[in-house]
């Protein structure tokens, strides 16, 4: 193979959503050169741009608040498993980031008094969540950060560059290898530090929100580079994803903001309220936490009290049309285009894979255990424990992104091993081998990789999803391991150079299958129910399991371990700080 294109930078940032873009800005501010890459388009490909509304932050504009209150709510939602140092950093620094975004003119919604509007969201004790109207938080945030990135003197950016692996020598990061989607050319990148900001894993589930790029890349890359993961048994299911009627041009998470502003009533197939039967109240208000609501909807469905399409009803029929329009303006017209009139009939909703609480294990400086390897945003595990509060994901993207960029820039003088082409050779060889076993052109029509993806998604949804049993998990694990070993190895992508989707499928599946295996293993090993991890065969929360599970990679085999929960530093104890 000819010598690949070679790039050099101080800090390579993999993934250009909210966390990656903020990391680039902070790294450049810290005096470093940053290279920001995304396998899709910069600022468009992640899940940040899909954020509909809420960003949790104790700015206290709507009513008095303090970051320690935000921390207390975050820890409570996390069911005892939050990494207190990360959760404290998230809550303490979120106001700085939200005000910085405000100076960059993101356009947070404001009241007539000029103060930021903040809404109540489930699990928060106060009106804490800022937003951009109408359902425009994600696009506004993405545009604002894209502008900052473009203005950064030391930031280079490349869209359509898929990073295949991080290059490590003797436990130190030396860079990465990628593939340029447009022409399929391999690219080597020398970097003293790499920040993984590639988001979560929702694509592993048949029913999901967020972008197609969320297939666990950052988790898999971290594992293969020698870092460890934490809390992999805790993907979050958003309870009221849109189910029916068919709706185009809107994210399935869209009913979340409707409930923030208007309440709405959640009803089972018999048109009865039911959340009260599961220990939370929800009547006309939006207060029940996500794990409980998802569980309740699923249980109603199992009991034969589901809606026709297999979920629950969400009704706004009691809200006058002028109120609907005042709250959501043009969105009401988009709903009408889809044949939906909220004043006349309810919609159907059901749980949907939405976020991952687990992820790359980092310390408070966002460092993994591999020198020079950092993580930011949803790629980070631990801050949200067993259940994430509404609104913490965008705050986390900003705060962890800024911290990762800032600390990586500070650490640069101590980081870095010399780039050696030999270290990258195995990754380049693998790509070349994949192309050399290309299927013949006369077998052009082939959907083996598409079918493998679909099988994985159905398997994860049915057996490693919302309600789990030891038997189903074990069955799924067997199949996932066989898919990793046999099916992936048998794939024969075509040999084309330009925009070869099946080469990308192979890498996506390699990451997705490895990550799926870690979820199934961790879910089998956690012999209790807690937060988003619900075991029907082990329905109770067990104090002995108030600890975190870690995953490392031994050769190709994931290995589990347990560790004590990292608690918030004593001086940051919310009770003390509030006194």
């Amino acid at each position, binding site marked *: 193979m000819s010598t690949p*294109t070679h*790039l050099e930078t101080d800090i390579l940032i993999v993934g250009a959503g909210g966390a990656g873009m903020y990391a680039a800005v902070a790294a450049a501010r810290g005096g470093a050169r940053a290279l920001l890459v995304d396998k*899709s*388009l*910069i600022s*468009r*490909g992640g899940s940040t*741009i*899909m954020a509909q509304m809420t960003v949790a932050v104790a700015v206290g504009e709507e009513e008095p608040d303090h970051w320690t209150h935000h921390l207390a709510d975050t820890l409570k939602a996390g069911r005892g498993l939050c990494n207190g140092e990360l959760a404290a950093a998230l809550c303490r620094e979120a106001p700085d980031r939200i005000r910085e975004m405000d100076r960059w003119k993101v356009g947070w919604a404001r009241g007539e008094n000029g103060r930021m509007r903040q809404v109540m969201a489930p699990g928060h004790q106060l009106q804490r969540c800022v937003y951009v109207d109408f359902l425009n938080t*994600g*696009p506004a945030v993405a545009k604002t950060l894209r502008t900052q990135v*473009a203005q950064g*003197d030391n*930031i*280079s*950016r*490349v*869209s*359509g*560059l898929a990073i295949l692996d991080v290059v490590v020598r003797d436990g130190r990061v030396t860079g990465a290898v990628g593939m*340029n989607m*447009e022409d399929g050319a391999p*690219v080597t990148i020398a970097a003293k530090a790499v920040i993984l900001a590639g988001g979560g894993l929702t694509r592993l589930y048949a029913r999901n929100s*967020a*972008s*197609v*790029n969320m297939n666990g890349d950052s988790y898999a890359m971290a594992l293969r580079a020698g870092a460890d993961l934490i809390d992999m048994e805790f993907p979050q299911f958003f309870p009221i994803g849109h189910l029916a*009627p*068919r*709706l*185009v*041009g*809107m*994210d*399935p998470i869209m009913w979340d903001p409707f409930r923030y502003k208007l309440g709405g009533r959640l009803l089972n197939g018999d048109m009865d309220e039911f959340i009260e039967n599961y220990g939370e109240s929800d009547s006309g208000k939006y207060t029940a936490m996500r794990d409980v609501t998802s569980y309740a909807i699923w249980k109603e469905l199992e009991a034969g009290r589901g809606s026709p399409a297999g979920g629950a009803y969400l009704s706004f029929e009691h809200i006058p049309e002028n109120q609907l329009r005042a709250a959501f303006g043009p969105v009401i017209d988009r709903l009408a285009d*889809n044949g939906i009139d909220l004043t006349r009939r309810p919609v159907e909703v059901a749980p949907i894979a939405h976020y991952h609480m687990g992820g790359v294990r980092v310390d408070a400086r966002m460092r993994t255990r591999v020198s020079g390897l950092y993580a930011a945003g949803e790629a980070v595990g631990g801050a949200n424990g067993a259940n994430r509060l509404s609104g913490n994901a965008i705050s986390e993207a900003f705060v962890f992104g800024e911290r990762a960029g800032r600390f990586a820039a500070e650490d640069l003088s101590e980081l870095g091993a010399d780039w050696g082409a030999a270290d990258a050779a195995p990754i380049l060889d693998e790509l070349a081998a994949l192309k050399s076993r290309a299927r013949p052109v006369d077998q*052009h*029509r*082939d*959907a*083996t*990789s*598409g*079918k493998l*993806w*679909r099988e994985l998604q159905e398997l994860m949804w049915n057996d490693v999803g919302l309600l789990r049993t030891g038997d189903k998990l074990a069955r799924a694990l067997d199949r996932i391991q066989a898919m990793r070993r046999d099916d992936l190895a048998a794939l024969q*992508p*075509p040999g*084309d150079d*330009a*925009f*070869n*989707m*099946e080469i990308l*499928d192979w890498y996506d599946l390699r990451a997705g299958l490895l990550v799926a295996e870690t979820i199934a293993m961790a879910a089998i090993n956690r012999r209790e129910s807690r937060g988003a991890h619900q075991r029907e065969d082990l329905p109770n929360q067990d104090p002995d399991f108030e600890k975190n599970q870690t995953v490392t990679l031994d050769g190709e085999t994931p290995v589990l371990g347990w560790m004590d929960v990292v608690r918030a530093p004593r001086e940051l104890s919310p009770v003390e700080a509030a006194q």
Partner: protein
Amino acid sequence: MPETVTIKVQRGAEGEFLHTEAFDVPYRQGMSALDALMWIRANIDSSLAIRYSCINANACKECMMRIDGRTQYACTARLGTDGATIEPLPNKRLIRDVVTDIVPPKETLGNLLGGIK
């Protein structure tokens, strides 16, 4: 309501023989053109090149293409019972199938190698 509809898609990369291929896709009321293209990738031909990210939200704005002669986002273009003819954007450089070069010039590898910034 028909059980299937026919989707005609332009295939081939820049510099290759460009041709149209037809796929029969199961029809569901309200489905989008992107639903059909994703179904083809998942069930008939995974090599079909499409550019999309957010799937259904019309947020990422990556899935712009030519559908029945009109430039549209595939995720919001409703599929009629007559199926559809899907082509790449006519005014952008073709990369493969319905994928064109919509990357902002300052975000390309070529630009970086050219030394700007």
